[in-house]
């Protein structure tokens, strides 16, 4: 049987008496794109942090890119790229210096070619020698994508990457993420913006209070259907949150 790109079984995470995640089951094959929707505090970031080895689960099985999270965290990290609302970029270094730093940390061969390639991909080639602190929020987020792609990961985890972006930057980021759907990379995106989830992904899931309460293929699913399902599970009081 083929090894799934991301597999989580009965995954739980507790912070003292608080159950952040309760019995999460996920299965994604290579090349698939899943968007996890949910309001603030639903457990989206906790789930991404566990999949990215930044946090240990309380219980359950997690396998990413064929590696068990508990046994092969180091090897697994080589195959994961993470894009968050925080950029993980050093503001007093240039874009080039940031990418060279992360490239060296990942042991990337032919690093100069890779840096050139990813900067071209995110449209920042002309600004490579500018300090990151001089970049706009949108440019920083594009550079953050370049950082996450520098080691050519097979799994991409995107945690609320649209936070703080204006409409233009949001459109650019959506275009970039759409280009990442090359059939080779498996992607999980978390957001509370339903239209973005629908636009980019193969599957959508809704996470509420640490539980996946809804999972559906995007093909044939309209935004109205998704909204109905979302507010039915999340609660009507959240309707303003997605506007």
């Amino acid at each position, binding site marked *: 049987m083929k090894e799934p790109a991301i597999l989580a079984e009965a995954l739980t995470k507790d912070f003292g008496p608080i159950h952040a995640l309760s019995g999460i089951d996920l299965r994604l094959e290579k090349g698939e794109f899943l968007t996890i929707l949910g309001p603030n505090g639903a457990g989206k970031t906790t789930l991404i*942090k566990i999949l990215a080895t930044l946090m240990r689960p309380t219980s359950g099985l997690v396998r990413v890119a064929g590696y068990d999270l508990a046994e092969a965290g180091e090897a697994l990290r080589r195959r994961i790229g993470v894009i968050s609302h925080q950029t*993980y970029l050093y503001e007093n270094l240039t874009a080039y210096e940031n990418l060279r730093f992360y490239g060296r940390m990942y042991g990337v061969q032919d690093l100069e070619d890779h840096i050139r390639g990813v900067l071209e991909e995110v449209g920042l080639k002309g600004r490579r020698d500018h300090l990151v602190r001089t970049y706009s929020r949108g440019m920083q987020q594009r550079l953050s994508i370049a950082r996450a792609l520098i080691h050519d990961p097979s799994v991409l985890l995107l945690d609320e990457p649209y936070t703080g972006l204006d409409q233009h930057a949001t459109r650019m980021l959506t275009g970039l993420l759409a280009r990442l759907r090359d059939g080779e990379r498996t992607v999980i995106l978390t957001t509370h913006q339903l239209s973005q989830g629908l636009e980019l992904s193969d599957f959508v899931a809704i996470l509420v209070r640490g539980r996946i309460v809804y999972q559906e293929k995007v093909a044939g699913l309209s935004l109205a259907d998704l909204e109905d399902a979302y507010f039915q599970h999340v609660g009507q009081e959240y309707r303003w949150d997605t506007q």
Partner: protein
Amino acid sequence: MGYTVRLWAIIYKDLVSEFRTKELFSSMFVFALLVLIIFNFAFSPGTRELQLVTAPGILWVAFTFAGALGLGRSFALEREKDCIHGLMLCPGDRGIIFLAKFLGNLLFMGAVEVITLPLFAIFFNVRILPILPSLTLILFLSTIGFASVGTLFAAMAAATKTREVLLPILLFPVAVPVIIAAVKSTGRVLEGRPLSEIAPWLNMLLSFDVIFLVICYITFEYVVEE
């Protein structure tokens, strides 16, 4: 090979960043200088004996408090934009982050000490050239101990909102053996006593360094993990 490249990449990144901002070094140096100036005025009319009694303590107040300033800043930089997560996502042993940060802190503290020491000699009328090898050994061993514990606690404190307050509260009680050994051995050396007389203090410093470097390296991953 890969380990050394990653280790150097982190240190180099911190050096370039510091070279551009000069935040860390300048604040540490100015603080150390101010301590020396204030205490020099406070004790200047004193006798030679009084100076020999107080000078080692003053020197180590300057070094350790300036060091604590620098240690706090070193991890605060990693918490901006959540860069610590970027580092933790990189493959390989996470202890390398501790080691690189420790070496960086050692370098910055060492640089402040090298510049502050001649000023200390001038302010307190102490001839340091004849005792320079012994003094260098004491400085080296003490700074390793202080920086190793300090790097771990700085990582811990950086994750909290009260990091500026928390770091000294955590660090100084644990670093007390290093500070006492450093002050006592510096005092003996300034009095012109032979190195053999301070051997027990040096052994204590060496033991502290080895034990805490190993403990901090191993526990670092658990400290930074959420």
